[in-house]
């Protein structure tokens, strides 16, 4: 088939696109919303609660909590619906735009402010005025749910990263298995002693910052004493000295072992299934503390220890990074008052304690997290203690995807295509440029 009039084809495409887009503009006033999913029967209100907890371990736990809530009063019934992790937020976005969102949803803590900025969630200050419950939460988490000083979500769970290490490997290398290196320099020295080679081929690697969950970006945050890529005023500081030192630390390790050796070794253990720490191929493994459940379930009596992230010099701070999930009311939800009551229940001590106990998650409620029964588990206690040095970084509003600009430069530096200084200067310039564009 030949298009005789290519111009008219283009024109018509453009026209139909414009028509479709303009149809979207009037869509979000949400007056005639769908009420099918939230009907009030006999004065009782049904609220919709969306989570991504559908696995056979998590689902019964959240549904038990919901059951308890439904039985605890006779005005509100919570209906739980599961959607796959990640995709749940695609669905929510469409639902908010159409004005028929759920009443409560679980979402990421880091982007709470960004969602508030885009008018996707509900300001909770009115509820908090009547009942101030912010004292329940770890302060670092509470700060993350604020947008222009007002709360738009309640923290539910959190996590923190720590160093897991193989005590048997430590003993075998003549190291004290109860003492993990305190500083980054000591860590590198320890790592050297833990490497094992067969001829020129590594059979075990003591530690590499390129493996597991605390890479250059996190180390840079630890080196700069918890500031990370943006300073207090929101100005990007990607190429500052501490971040450069962190890059050099990563590169020194890579040069010692050989980047090629690191890559080959990494390729041999793949990325998702068998874990090299559990398999005894890597001796030191920084990860979220929930990694413990994998060791517990698959680590057949692995003799491991857990320690805070190192620091650059004595008492500079064992800074770690964390994240977590929050509960929030999507914009346009029909029963905010009832949603609030349910969220209050979910963040209260008993529900939070139950969740922590069954899932081994770190929870946002300080009192629940510090429950003496829970603290009997060594790893759990270490994780709660680590909250004092754990930082959660909100997504910057005028550069939400800044990592996409930093990561290529990070990789260029690691691959040796650019000097660390050049790479970080380039990343700094790129992020500055992005922010300039977004603030116009």
């Amino acid at each position, binding site marked *: 088939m030949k298009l005789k009039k290519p111009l008219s084809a283009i024109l018509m495409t453009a026209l139909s696109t414009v028509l479709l*887009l303009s149809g979207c503009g009037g*869509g979000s006033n949400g007056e005639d919303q769908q009420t099918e999913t939230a009907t009030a029967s006999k004065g009782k209100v049904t609220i919709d609660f969306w989570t991504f907890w559908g*696995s056979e371990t998590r689902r019964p736990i959240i549904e038990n909590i919901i059951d308890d809530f439904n039985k605890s009063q006779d005005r509100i019934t919570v209906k739980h*619906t599961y959607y796959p992790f990640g995709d749940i937020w695609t669905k929510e976005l469409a639902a908010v*735009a159409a004005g028929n969102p759920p009443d409560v949803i679980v979402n990421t803590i880091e982007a709470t402010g960004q969602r508030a900025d885009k008018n996707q969630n509900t300001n909770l200050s009115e509820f908090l005025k009547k009942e101030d419950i912010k004292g329940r939460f770890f302060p670092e988490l509470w700060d993350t749910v604020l947008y222009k000083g007002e709360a738009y979500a309640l923290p539910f769970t959190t996590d923190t990263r720590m160093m897991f290490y193989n005590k048997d490997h430590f003993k075998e290398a003549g190291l004290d298995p109860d003492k993990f290196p305190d500083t980054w320099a000591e860590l590198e020295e320890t790592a050297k002693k833990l490497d094992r080679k067969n001829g020129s081929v590594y059979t075990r690697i003591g530690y590499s910052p390129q493996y597991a969950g605390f890479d250059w970006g996190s180390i840079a945050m630890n080196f700069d004493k918890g500031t990370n890529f943006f300073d207090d005023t929101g100005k990007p500081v990607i190429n500052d000295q501490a971040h450069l030192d962190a890059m050099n630390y990563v590169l020194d390790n890579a040069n010692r072992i050989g980047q090629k050796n690191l890559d080959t070794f990494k390729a041999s253990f793949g990325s*998702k299934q068998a874990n090299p720490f559990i*398999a005894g191929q890597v001796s030191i493994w920084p990860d979220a503390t929930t990694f413990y459940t994998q060791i517990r379930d698959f680590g057949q009596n692995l003799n491991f220890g857990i320690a805070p992230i190192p620091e650059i010099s004595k008492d500079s701070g064992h800074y770690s990074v964390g994240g977590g999930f929050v509960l929030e009311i999507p914009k346009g939800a029909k029963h905010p008052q009832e949603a609030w009551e349910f969220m209050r229940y979910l963040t209260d001590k008993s529900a939070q304690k139950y969740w922590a106990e069954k899932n081994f998650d770190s929870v946002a409620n300080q009192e629940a997290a510090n429950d003496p029964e829970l603290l009997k588990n060594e790893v759990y206690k270490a994780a709660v203690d680590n909250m004092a040095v754990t930082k959660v970084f909100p997504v910057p509003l005028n550069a939400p995807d800044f990592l996409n600009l930093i990561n290529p430069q990070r990789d260029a530096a690691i691959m040796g295509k650019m000097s660390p200084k050049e790479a970080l200067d380039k990343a700094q310039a790129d992020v500055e440029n992005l922010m300039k564009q977004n603030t116009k």
Partner: protein
Amino acid sequence: MSTRMSSRMVHAHSNYYQSRKLRQRVGMAVLIAVLTALAMIILMPLWWMISTSLKSLNEIMSYPPTWIPESFHWENYRLTWSRGNFTRYTLNTLLLAGVGVITHVLSNTFIAYGFAKIKFPGRQMLFTVMLGTMMIPGFVTLIPTYIMFAKIHWVGTYLPLMVPGLFGSAYQIFLVRQFYMSIPNELIEAGKIDGASHYYIWWKIMIPLAKPAVVVIAIMTFQGAWNDFLGPLIYISKESMFNLQIGLQSFKGQETTQWHYLMAGSLIVLAPVIALFFFFQRYFIEGMNISSGTKG
């Protein structure tokens, strides 16, 4: 002497013949070896799926990875089926795919008939507009369409997944039209002389003659509905109405993935599509020919 010579010639000839045969055989062997190696490379992920689906989670997580499971856990399939509520999801998916195939075949063959065989003012223009819609990426129309369906209270039902099929799909209309173009107009004129209406001609002449194209769009639609994830995800709000693709995702969690169930489930979902391919292989290839324009 002459006999000796001729025997030598025969010998040389048979030598030549043998070496040619040998060369052919070696060539064939090399070709088969290369093709086998390539096929193995392509089948490796599939084997990995099968093997993972039969392992225990402990074996999946252990190092070094094993190609053949140490012990065969056939019960993974049974557990996947019951834990994932797959009976329900399969029925739902079959319903969606079935309705999809019927509506797409009816509407697209009908619309294509108009574009291919009926002359009316603005036909070319309309056809161009229709083709133009193929250039709009699905993500652009996602939110507006969703809002529209929300306004008419169709979200939470199967209607947004079923009804649009009645309004045709640009690519399939194009495909069937190309096929119709190769059917001589004389047939239609003969029908008209005998007093047949357009509906009759479409149903009794065009569809039977365009069978390959009809099968191709049926298969395309079935595959599309079978593998659809985004549509059901955003329009369905009850778990009892989920389809297989959403059901599969429940084995993937926030921090751990139940690989054995995920792989067993993926194979269960994959099986009908593979079966379909073997049964209708000829049409798949024919479909590629139609769409690349060699027929039209």
